[in-house]
């Protein structure tokens, strides 16, 4: 399905330029009208966005803003249809995966060119480049979360573990998970390596300092002994019933629900997830403690990033880029982070004492404090490769064949790497 999707992006971008002559609504008074889209912020953060709009319009009286909020699962379809239909938004909230997909089809404004150096420098370097394709960045980073380890201190105590000390390394996670399973009967850990989320395994390898792709991006390197050993570790956990069967079927969502039921010792996720636990499982929330993400050899922490991109089909690209810079400036980001357990992408905002001092909710404050200290290690690990669906299929098969022990891990990865090489050689990356 995604293949078809991609084909159509390419198609529609071309249509967009043909059709761009037809009816963009422009404000009657000769004002410039900018339309910007966000992902799922209504209604809870309507007041925040509206306050930004009011501020912006005061500073820019000749520009009129229109805000549209869309659920994430419809974002790409709506965006593609709108670009094709000649009603492209001017600024759009994306994540690096979406931005890369669009950038590959030449649909987004190159931000390295459009944003002056003095503005680029305000963003953390490791985040500015999150949506980079062929050496150029195509989106301005907005809010960020870095992964932490949340653990259920009740289960830790029940298993005789020190509830004040979370796991420090992946070895600790394994050890704790074994003890929790033995002493309490519930699972201690459920990694996000289900085949449907094959990207997580690529992230994991990269965190462990295991190269997955050659420098020229033509060759897969994940059939190295180190990569095989990492996957073997998961296979052994699975075989020995240290991680649940659902690891292979329900993935991250399954882990999240299990944790909220109080049936999972540890969960690796972003701090914003704490909001959900607080609402849906207050007892588990109160028992939750937070530990830093166990950094592997690469010393990096996986980060989820939201950003703003400007479609090339926008009528007012210059103003649109300025609006995106305004929405993500120090002051506005800091204000947003004070509402939610999120991190900013600008240097000045990230240095604010608020992130260390907290706002009086011990669990979230702890998570944010740990999270902000990891921020300089944060990376978005998307590879930004074309033919992502086919590449994913090969890796998915390798995960299944390894976990269900149909093949040795090495054989399964060799097979996948061979397919990758074929696919990578066929398309220009």
């Amino acid at each position, binding site marked *: *399905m995604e293949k*078809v*999707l991609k084909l*159509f992006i390419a*198609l*529609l971008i071309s*249509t967009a330029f043909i*059709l761009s002559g*037809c*009816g963009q609504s422009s404000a009657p008074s000769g004002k410039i009208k900018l339309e910007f889209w966000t*992902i*799922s*912020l*209504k*209604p*809870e*953060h309507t007041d925040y966005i509206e306050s930004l709009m009011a501020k912006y319009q005061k500073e820019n009286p000749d520009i009129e803003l229109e805000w*549209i909020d*869309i*659920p*994430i699962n*419809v974002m790409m*379809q*709506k965006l*593609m*249809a*709108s670009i*094709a*239909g*000649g*009603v492209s938004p001017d600024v759009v909230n994306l994540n690096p995966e979406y931005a890369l997909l669009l950038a590959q089809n030449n649909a987004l404004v190159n931000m390295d060119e459009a944003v002056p150096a003095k503005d680029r420098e305000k963003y953390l370097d490791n985040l500015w480049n999150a949506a980079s394709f062929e050496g150029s960045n195509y989106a301005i980073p907005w809010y960020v979360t870095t992964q932490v380890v949340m653990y259920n201190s009740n289960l830790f105590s029940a298993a005789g573990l020190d509830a004040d000390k979370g796991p420090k390394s992946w070895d600790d996670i394994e050890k704790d998970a074994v003890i929790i399973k033995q002493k309490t009967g519930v699972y201690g850990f459920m990694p996000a390596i289900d085949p449907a989320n094959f990207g997580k395994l690529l992230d994991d390898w990269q965190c462990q300092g295991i190269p997955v792709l050659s420098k020229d991006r033509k060759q897969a390197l994940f059939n190295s002994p180190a990569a095989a050993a990492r996957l073997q570790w998961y296979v052994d956990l699975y075989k020995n019933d240290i991680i649940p069967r659902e690891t292979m079927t329900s993935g991250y969502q399954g882990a999240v*629900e299990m944790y*909220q*039921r*109080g049936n999972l010792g540890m969960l690796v996720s972003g701090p*914003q997830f704490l*909001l*959900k636990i*607080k*609402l*849906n*499982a*207050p*007892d*588990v929330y109160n028992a939750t403690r937070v530990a830093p993400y166990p950094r592997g050899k690469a010393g990096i922490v996986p980060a989820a990033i939201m950003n703003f991109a400007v479609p090339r089909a926008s009528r007012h690209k210059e103003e649109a880029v300025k609006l995106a810079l305004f929405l993500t400036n120090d002051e506005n980001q800091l204000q947003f982070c004070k509402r*939610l357990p*999120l991190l900013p992408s600008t240097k000045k905002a990230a240095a604010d004492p608020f992130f260390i001092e907290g706002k009086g909710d011990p669990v979230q404050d702890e998570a944010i404090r740990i999270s902000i200290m990891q921020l300089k290690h944060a990376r978005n690990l998307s590879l930004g490769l074309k033919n992502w669906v086919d590449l994913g299929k090969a890796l998915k098969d390798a995960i299944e064949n390894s976990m269900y022990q149909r093949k040795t891990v090495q054989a399964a990865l060799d097979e996948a790497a061979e397919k990758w090489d074929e696919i990578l050689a066929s398309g220009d990356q």
Partner: protein
Amino acid sequence: MKTVKRILSYTGLIFLALFLTGPFIWMIFVAFKSSGNVFKIADLKDFLPFPATFSNFIQVMKDVPLIPQFLLNTIWICFWGVFLELLIASLAAYPLARLEFPGRNFIFAAMLATLMLPAQANMIVNFITIRKLGLFDTYLSIFLPSLVSVFGIFLMRQAYIVIPRELEDAARIDGCGELGIWYRIMLPLTRPSMATLAIFSFVSYWNTFMWPLVILKHEAKYPLAVGLSYLSNMFASNFRAVAAGSVLSMVPIIIVFVIMQRHFIKGIMAGSIK
């Protein structure tokens, strides 16, 4: 002996029914839950919604104050969508099933072929068409692209095909024109299939999500399914409110199903008896 057998089979059936409706029952219970862990279902005390409360429904109204508007939008869309879809499907299927004309099978095959196209392919073409027609951000734009339902035409064609030729001939002898035959003879005989199609199309309009979001700009025109997505935002979805919203949105579907149920069951079995 007979009673024992009956008790056994009913126990089995009740168990099966509970099993199949389990997730649904859980959702209803969550909608009425006041506090505590939503996901814990280990023992009955955690599972049952006691003390029960309406506060989640009130929360839904507070979070999404436009819900009555969304509901009216959906009813409006469903009414026109279902009515026109039925009309077009039953009219279009009639000649395909009952009249002989050159190219009939080709037309039918061509229509079926469009079913193979992925939804994304249609979406962008539809979007551009709607824009060119000047219908962007209107109610009409929501149901216009799906008014001609190939599935509906197919279903109705199968229903017409099994009607005995004699009935049609008798009507013709009595002086009925083609439209008269369709209206007086065919339509009443295909009522079960119409009811089936009505339910299918009602449910799909009721749940329509992606397309309205793509084609609409102003939220005041959103249908209910889209409006309810406001309950689960990026960071913290209150599962109790989501459950309450889902329960609210399902009530009308259940009502329609109960009304149409008799025909619906007949529709499923249509073809096997006639």
